């Protein structure tokens, strides 16, 4: 499940959290979730919202994966989730909580 993630210090036990200053907002008028951050707003599609809703500074990548896996039977979930997390990390939306690796 950590395919493609080995370059940065990430393992499936890593806990994810939003980078300070980044937060989710429910937008009733636009019927979607927005990601608000310094000088930028991102309109999220459904799958991105579903992942980011699970980012709470408590759940590990593995926990996020299994919650999503329970909702969908999708063979590509592994790869898609890994890709999305890498992307969200590199854009600075989320980060790995330090000392978060639970052993």
């Amino acid at each position, binding site marked *: 499940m950590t395919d493609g993630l080995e370059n*940065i210090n990430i393992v499936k036990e890593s806990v994810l959290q939003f*980078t300070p200053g980044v*937060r989710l907002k429910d937008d009733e*008028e*636009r019927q979607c979730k927005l990601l*608000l*951050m*310094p*000088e930028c*707003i991102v309109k999220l599609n459904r799958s991105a919202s579903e992942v980011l809703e699970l980012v709470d500074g408590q759940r590990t990548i593995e926990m996020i994966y299994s919650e999503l896996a329970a909702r969908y039977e999708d063979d590509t979930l592994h790869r898609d989730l890994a890709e999305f997390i890498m992307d969200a990390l590199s854009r600075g939306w989320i980060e790995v909580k330090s000392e978060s690796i639970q052993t």
Partner: protein
Amino acid sequence: MTVIAKQRPFTITMELTHRCPLQCLYCSNPMELISKENELSLDHWISIVDQAADLSIVQANLTGGEPLAYPRLTSVVAQLKKRDIYSNLITSGIGLTEKVLEELVSCGLESIQISLQSANASTAELIAGWNAQAQKMSSLNLALRQKIPVSLNVVLHKYNIDEVGEIIDLAAELNVKRLELANTQFYGFALANRENLLPSEKQMENAVAVYDLKKKQLAAKIQMSWIIGDYLERSPKPCMGGWANQHIVVSADGTAYPCLAAGAIKTLSFPSTKEKSLQWIWEESPAFNAFRGTDWMLEPCRSCEFREKDFGGCRCQAFLLTGDAAQADPVCKLSPHHQLVEEKIKKANAPLASTKELIYRLN
């Protein structure tokens, strides 16, 4: 005229005051600054925040002038918080004390952007009109110690573009997480100083090479962005998602604009929030509807395949350079006025420095 579906705006810029202790050569405030007596009351700003939230606005930039010079700033921030609008303070750092910052954060301020003029005090002084570097550095350090995201912003031009490397190193040393570089946009005072500020193509080329290298090296440490200036960009810059499509600006006297520079367009009359609601301004006002969609376009934009991508470029630039805001942005190679921009670039490339006087804003 066809009716254009209007989406709701996402962001608002609130220019709380035009007052500012600095006198930057590249200031984008208009040459006729709004005086203190004509600034809006707190009640008016509170009502604007409420109207903005009702219009589905989700983010606000508090700016000026120097927004810290507006005495009721914390109350404005608190109201934004109350209406769940993300607030971002854009400041020179002058006037930022520990106490002020703590108060702002406790009222709900979500991010802060501090500007530096240069990595060196002497260049900074030339640009800002007085020596404020030490104060700025201490504000920056103060903010970096707080639990609030800080972006460092540096406006680039002929005088500091050669120091791009130093600026980036300084940001890394300070442990800044976000660095925003932006070439000077030529409106307001900046336009009056254009000859002095426009960097040469050679300068740009060198600076971009340094930037690209450092950006790669520091990718894990700093998020960096650079908005290249209009005149040096090869294709017209798309007007922020189109004229009056995402953003609304309320200036210090209550006038509403689709963008910070739009006041330069003297052929439009911009509505006041003192007379009309934000919703009417957004949906009905002639100024906000003037360049929505593509019906207003002239050739070559009218039949151009990029018209829905760059929206014909910047309306303010078109007006400032051609006198007609509906023309193609002269930055575009297809514009019949493109040669105006070429001439400016040629001048900037000349080895001799401009002999034009520097024009500082008077406060």
